């Protein structure tokens, strides 16, 4: 039983993809940089180029950190749902296999935050 209830109890999920006006949610976290208290949530069209996320969206989200300008994107390690993963910057989110509410993280070797404290 998926819920303890008196009667039949089934509802649409509040966050199904149809509710986001053509977008899907993507969560992005930057490892070792907890100056940003939590990973971010973004609504993106599935056809958006992955490289555009990195080049046009992430600077506004993470740019405050002094490490951000030092990132060598070619060396960045990516994880999807915690597993190593390699995105193709020139392909769309959908073609990279990213669906609604997927979570990705990136690690930037050599960059470990304020005073190396993962901040």
């Amino acid at each position: 039983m998926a819920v303890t209830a008196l009667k039949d109890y089934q509802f649409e999920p509040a966050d199904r993809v149809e509710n986001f006006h053509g977008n899907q949610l993507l969560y992005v976290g930057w490892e070792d940089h907890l100056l940003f208290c939590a990973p971010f949530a973004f609504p993106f069209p599935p056809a958006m180029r992955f490289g555009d996320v990195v080049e046009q969206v992430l600077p506004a989200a993470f740019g405050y950190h002094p490490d951000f300008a030092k990132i060598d994107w070619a060396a960045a390690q990516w994880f999807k749902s915690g597993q190593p993963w390699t995105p193709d910057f020139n392909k769309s989110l959908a073609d990279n296999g990213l669906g609604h509410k997927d979570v990705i993280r990136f690690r930037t070797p050599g960059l470990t935050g304020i005073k190396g404290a993962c901040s």
Partner: protein
Amino acid sequence: MDMNVPKKKLSLKEKYSHMTRGLDWEPSYQSKDDVYPYAKYEGIKIHDWDKWEDPFRLTMDAYWKYQAEKERKLYAIIDAYAQNNGHLSVTDARYINTVKLFLTGVSPLEYMAHRGFAHVGRQLPGAGPRVACLMQSIDEIRHAQTQVHSLSNYNKYYNGLHDFRHMHDRVWYLSVPKSFFDDAITAGPFEFMVAIGFSFEYVLTNLLFVPFVSGAAYNGDMSAMTFGFSAQSDEARHMTLGLEVIKFMLEQDPDNLPIVQRWIDKWAWRGTRVLTLVAMMMDYMLPKRIMSWKEAWEVYFEENGGALFKDLARYGITMPKCIEDITKEKEHLSHQAWATFYNYGAAAAFHTWTPDEDEMNWLSEKYPDSFDKYYRPRLEYWRDEAAKGNRFYNKTLPMLCQVCQIPMLFTEPDDPTKICYRETQYKDDKYHFCSDHCKAIFEHEPEKYIQSWLPVHQIYQGNCFPEGTDPTAEGFDPLAAVLAYYHMNFGRDNLDFEGSEDQKNFDAWRGVATSND
């Protein structure tokens, strides 16, 4: 010879029994199942409601008498505090932000508790617990009213308190306490009793009220101290009711044990997640500290809760599994929570700041294993950047946990440098959690939690702008629109304490109060 034998007074037990069992009756033309439709579906088996032991035997006449006395004491103090400009005697204006958090986050829960206990008091088939729930329901609305009344005095002078009820249903961080209580009140009557009556009132309430109330006393806030004590004086009755319910269920049928244990596990965790707000209040928001969150947890949970669970062991109840992780988290909780509000200080209805040097030293001393290593560097960086005019305001919305609804700010229990990510698939969608425990709660009742009203997702769905807003219009500013929907005034209610209207007014008024200029 005539002897005037005085009529023997009824004992407490007899009086109470007349009021409860004596006033109860067996339905004759309706079935009991129809009269109490929620009594069985949760799977709890009760064979004999007469076995219920009333913990406190307060009859209605005594109840009204003592409650009236509490009210008289309370209002005498509230009036004196207001007449004497008591708000200017608090340690410093930063303190008032704890009051804002309390009014918007906690007082509406008192009202929900009133509703919850009224509902459960109607639905439980036993007369003893019904009467106890009725009294608790009246207590809870008294708490809501006295809190709102006491704190309304601050609303005359300070920002962020003007629309607490509206905010409670909408603002991102207030969805945490709101959804906690909504979860409890939408459960069956027995789960509600374990959630609120036992886990919250018995196990965790001391962590909310005792530090908050002593904190108010330490920081010169006589009005909050007084309503706190006045409310707390009812809690002893509530706590014993919560404990009695647990014992009663466990004594009635051995099949109840696994259900009760699962509820205790769930609600110990849900409650502790909500108390994250109290942790940061104690460690960061009280200008004069009483004790650290970690110390409060050790005294009120580890010592006290330890005794409780040792006692319940004879029924087969064990300490909730999550306690091991909470024990690890106590080193980190308040720092991670405050960092989050500092990040999103532009979207909060209270002010945030970086602790000054003395306060950071206090934190180092209280948290020798975690503060300097993990948290001081980021706070110092923020402080230095703010001094250069580059105060950090995070403008990108965070990922939230599907169950507790808190941004995913918690780290792995054994690694404070790594955010704890957990996920699961249910039907067509993925769901994300801050911890194994929130994930387990979801997996037990996914149909309930797939409906969570997650503020970040609701904003992205376009449901959190004032009516008539066109998000496609040129120059649309989503943050401004969301704050308008929250009824928050940009530049007055939010942003850093440094430079705020509250700070300037408090200094000016205190100057007037203590000099002849």
